[in-house]
């Protein structure tokens, strides 16, 4: 009976390890039934059953065989479990490395990806040829990293009607979205919005400030 209890306790411990969301190696080793101490306690429990003595020899033998088979089955199951967990851990690690690589690429200075704005002429949502390489870089990056999400925020300068500018900002953001899709990005990766002329980054009323406000910003969601 003791053996069964121990075995069950071990199973519960392994299952607890399986269901744990953070499958770090440390967690798993703590609950590892292949640990020599765990194994010793199992063998001791078998011996204690043998030492019980006064029962029928045949019964005891059958009981021992049954326990051994049970142990072997369990051993096999745990091996499979272990290999599955290892695979998952490898996948998680690969994912973390990929995310780190994404962050590294996004954080890289002086790269095309570090340029997050496209600028426009007055009352136009046409992407000028000079911004084509930036659009290509972001479109390519999104296509290579399908889990990455961005938001495009369209903006306008303060000239013209506020409501028309709200629609114009939306149109700028939408056209940039279409350009990214042409470069391989998926529509699901891109959210668009417009603040029109309501959120200027530059408050001057000269053409220089206004040109900087006629802009679509690419905002990577985790970064914002």
């Amino acid at each position: 009976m003791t053996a069964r209890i121990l075995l069950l306790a071990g199973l519960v411990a392994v299952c607890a390890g399986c269901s744990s969301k953070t499958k770090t190696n440390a967690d798993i080793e703590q609950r590892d039934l292949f640990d020599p101490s765990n194994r010793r306690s199992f063998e001791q429990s078998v011996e204690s059953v043998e030492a019980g003595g006064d029962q029928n020899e045949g019964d005891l033998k059958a009981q021992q065989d049954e326990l051994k088979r049970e142990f072997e089955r369990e051993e096999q199951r745990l091996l499979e479990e272990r290999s599955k967990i290892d695979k998952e851990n490898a996948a998680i690690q690969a994912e973390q490395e990929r995310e780190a690589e994404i962050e590294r690429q996004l954080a890289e200075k002086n790269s095309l990806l570090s340029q997050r704005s496209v600028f426009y002429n007055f009352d136009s949502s046409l992407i000028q040829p000079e911004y084509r390489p930036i659009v290509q870089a972001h479109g390519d990056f999104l296509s290579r990293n399908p889990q990455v999400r961005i938001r495009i925020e369209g903006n306008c300068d303060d000239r013209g009607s506020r409501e028309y500018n709200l629609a114009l900002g939306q149109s700028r953001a939408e056209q940039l979205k279409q350009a990214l899709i042409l470069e391989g990005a998926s529509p699901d990766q891109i959210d668009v919005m417009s603040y029109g002329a309501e959120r200027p980054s530059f408050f001057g009323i000269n053409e220089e400030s206004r040109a900087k406000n006629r802009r679509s910003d690419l905002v990577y969601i985790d970064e914002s």
Partner: protein
Amino acid sequence: MSFVLRVSNALVHTALIVSILFFGIASAQVEIEIIADEGSKIPITVLPFGGEGEEADLIAEIISADLTKTGLFSIQDVETSWGLSKLKGEDFADWQERKVQNLVVGKFAKLKDGRIQASFWLYDILGQAMSVGYQIKDDPKQLRRTAHHFADLIYEKLTGDKGVFRTKIAYVVRKTDLSALVIADSDGHNPNEIFSSKEPILSPRWSPTGDQIAFVSFLNRRAAVYVVPVNYQTGRVSGKPEVIGPFPGSNSAPAWSPDGKRLAIAISKDGRSDIFSVLLSDRSKVQLTNSRSIDTEPSFSHDGKSIVFTSDRTGQPQIYKASISQVSEVRLTYAGRYNASAQLSPDDSFLALMHYDEGRFNVGTLDMQTGIVQILTKGTLDQSPSIAPNGKVIVYASEANGRGILRFVSKNGRAKLRYLGPKGDDIREPSWGPFIKD
């Protein structure tokens, strides 16, 4: 509050010595710059009201300021040395001798029940008749409204049009990281903030009855249309703002149907912006425009059968008119590379609009009969025109010293004034409310 109409020839008034009318006290925030042909103005003399206290003087000052601002009146002071105090309104020959043509006299008293009582009489000196007499008893806080009420009656009697001195305007004040929706008297007094948000607020629009304001703000990074209930008399908010929809995409540019049952709104989605009419009772919507370009800024005609709107279908924003019931769209503007923000006048005879030419944005009118555009302003960035309910004045947003201000211009372009908000507020996007219900 009680209004008592009282027309009587029996009352006799003692006119006080005329002081020089000055708007400094009555409207400290308003600068007046009138451009008008003196000869065509209606001359009027407003004597200080009889009675004790500053209030008596203030009533006459407010009436004079209201009438002057229309550009239709010239306030004529009379010489103080002629022993005016002995003259009565009915001393027509004596007034005629002093070249007075229209005369306003009045009196003011504080009643024992705490209310104020003000009366005025308008005399037609040439016609030798009293043409209007009116008395109001009201809460002392309503002194300005009482004076505006008198100015409305005088304006209507002498011009034939209804006055708008008791109407309200709503506008947006932009502060650092905050937008506020404000209701004020149409002369800029009594500004009252009714709603504020960290998100931008734009496009406030009064409902036809004045008991709701529709506006645009942002909800989860999307422009959304809100409606907030207000009390038009007090200028106070009477409930919480409610989102209409939101419908997928960016929702903006609300316009009330004349019956107040529908809002036309622009919905921007998948790279296009179309105008829809939303029935407020069940939020069902009908599409009014259909183009692959930007269609926005609807304004209903006053029979509710058509809208005017802005569209860039030719590559530049211009004004179009569309029928509600059938597919028919007509382009209305051809002059200028940029026309937007059109609003139909109360009689549908003209549009107020924003017009761009030679590097300047100005407010003008488009005559619906002739198609002629008349530019009324001289700024570089004049926008958001809103027409007074009598169709005679347009309020719009402009700039002075780097901040937003409101300017008023008469429909004929002859009277102009500007309103600088209190505390140096950055003001924008005015919407002129409807006539007050008596």
